[in-house]
């Protein structure tokens, strides 16, 4: 395990701090905001990945 800022860290304490923040209102809000941003990015990528029927039939001629 790599050092974290040169200190000894109790992983269990770290996890418990994370859990407290995650269940707080501020944490919840940030998680929701982040999730919707990810959702938007995935949606945009899925739209770009989809191939329209027209694209499948357009001949490549140059």
């Amino acid at each position, binding site marked *: *395990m*790599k*050092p*974290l*800022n*040169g*200190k*000894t*860290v*109790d*992983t*269990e304490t*770290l*996890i418990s*701090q*994370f*859990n407290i*923040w*995650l*269940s707080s209102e501020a*944490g*919840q809000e*940030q*998680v*929701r905001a*982040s*999730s919707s*941003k*990810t959702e*938007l*990015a*995935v949606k*945009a*990528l*899925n739209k*770009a*990945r*989809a*191939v*329209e029927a027209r*694209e*499948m*039939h*357009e*001949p*490549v*001629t*140059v």
Partner: protein
Amino acid sequence: MTVFPFSPEILVRLLVDYSEGAEDHIASKRQSSFLQEYLQELKAATVVCEPGYIDRDFLRDFSAYYVTCFYNYARTTTRLHFFSASFDQSALVSLLSGTEGQELSAEELQDHYLGFVVVRPLPETVIGRTCLRTYPTEEGRRTFPVLQQYPVNLFGIPLSVLSLAFQEQDRVAAACATSALWSSFQATGRYFHHPIPSPTEITRSAAVSLPDQEVPNTRAFPNAGLSATQMANAILAVGLEPQVLGASNAHLVKSTLYAYLKGHIAPVLGVSLYNHIVGETSQKSHGRHAVAVTGYSMRGGEVEPYGYNKFLLRSSRLTNLYVHDDQLGPFARMRFVDLPTIGFDGASSEACILLTNWPADHDIVGLARIMVLPLYNKIRIPFHIVHDAIMEVDALLNLFRQKFFPESLQLEWDIYLTTGSEFKTDVLKTKSTHTSGNAVELLTAGLPRFVWRASAYQAEELVMDLLLDATGVIQSNLMLFAKVSLAEIKASIIAIANGIAGKHIPGPSQQAMYIIRTIANPSAGGGGELHQSSNCLIKLAQCARRWHVEVSKVGFVRI
């Protein structure tokens, strides 16, 4: 056999002399100009002509088409060999006859061998199979992951060149899409062990869907072009699985091409070609074109973030693609450019625009439309499943970083297709820093033939390495191996897993959930052998051929 000192003029002369082409036409051909410049860049000094060469690909096209023409086309070609050393005909004759005091040796010829161009005995489309060395890699800036070793026998002297074969379309048996597929099959044929069809055979297998109601004027021979559906047919015909993807987003194009190129697959990229004249509101279209992508170059420095969560993917550093463009030549450069998309039909603001090297009074750009991937049937898990799952995991990890470790750097991800064997070779190379005491267990474990690797870096240091099964079932847990070497990341992932279980985090996608749960709670993956190293616990789930990181028992970590 004749030997000439290389010059652009000599090259044109030879292309004219050994084909049916008119000098003015050959001299003004884009392919001819490209080869002149390319060979000058490779520092060509001598060209050796090998007339009467029987080229397998031309012979198959000849027997399928040209032999039944009224005009008496020759069935043999001429092969031009290029060397970066200067020598004359007498030196080569002396080497071949074995006379004493030779100036030239076979080793020297190999050292200076740049490759060959087959000249077809046709009126216009004279550039046949061409295997030339690539541009210098410039300390890894340029990468060509799909190269093959081509053995050459020059009058009994064994030579070889590391390249990927190219040829221009003959506009009869092949249009650009056929030529692009032919080049792509050069890589997959050797890598996945399938027969490499000639251009005529590719066109014939592509045309099984003719007549196509959408393009009723298309016929197989003479061929005017293929649609994506027809390209997919040609891929199926060699026993591979076609995957056709849209390409209307620069992040998508860069990340997808990079991921598959690193897996030794040469994707076919379909573009719409346009003039680019600054200030024009409607750019002239030149039609659709297809190229085989054979390499890329990357810049150093910062990664370009993608999306609102600023996902950092190494492939965003791509600056150029190197493509086999049958209208230009092998390893032709296409540069990613950031241009306003006004004037290009149907282009979104995120469109992927590539500046070509086509000689013209103004820039000619390619607007990326589709990517066609010829995949081995066992590569079942597409790139986007892994990419999107990692993007989700990264967004959640980033939340914890911003809140608790704002001074630490955001993770930069590198996601690509590789093989279990290549992964092991890489582990063997980096075992002192990467796997610590687990190297032997990892190196001797069974892994699938194809795997997706997602590595996370902080300031070029590998801090998390994930391996996912590319051959598996999309609905299953694909995680094979994980190595997390930062306490904050491990703790964050456990907290995320707790958050998902406690419904504090809205349900992520299935694969993102599997990644998080597998790292946080390896016991969910079934029984197996437990290996403890000095820095982490790795669980080898032999029954499921899966590797998991044990993080729930880390406890206190000296850091």
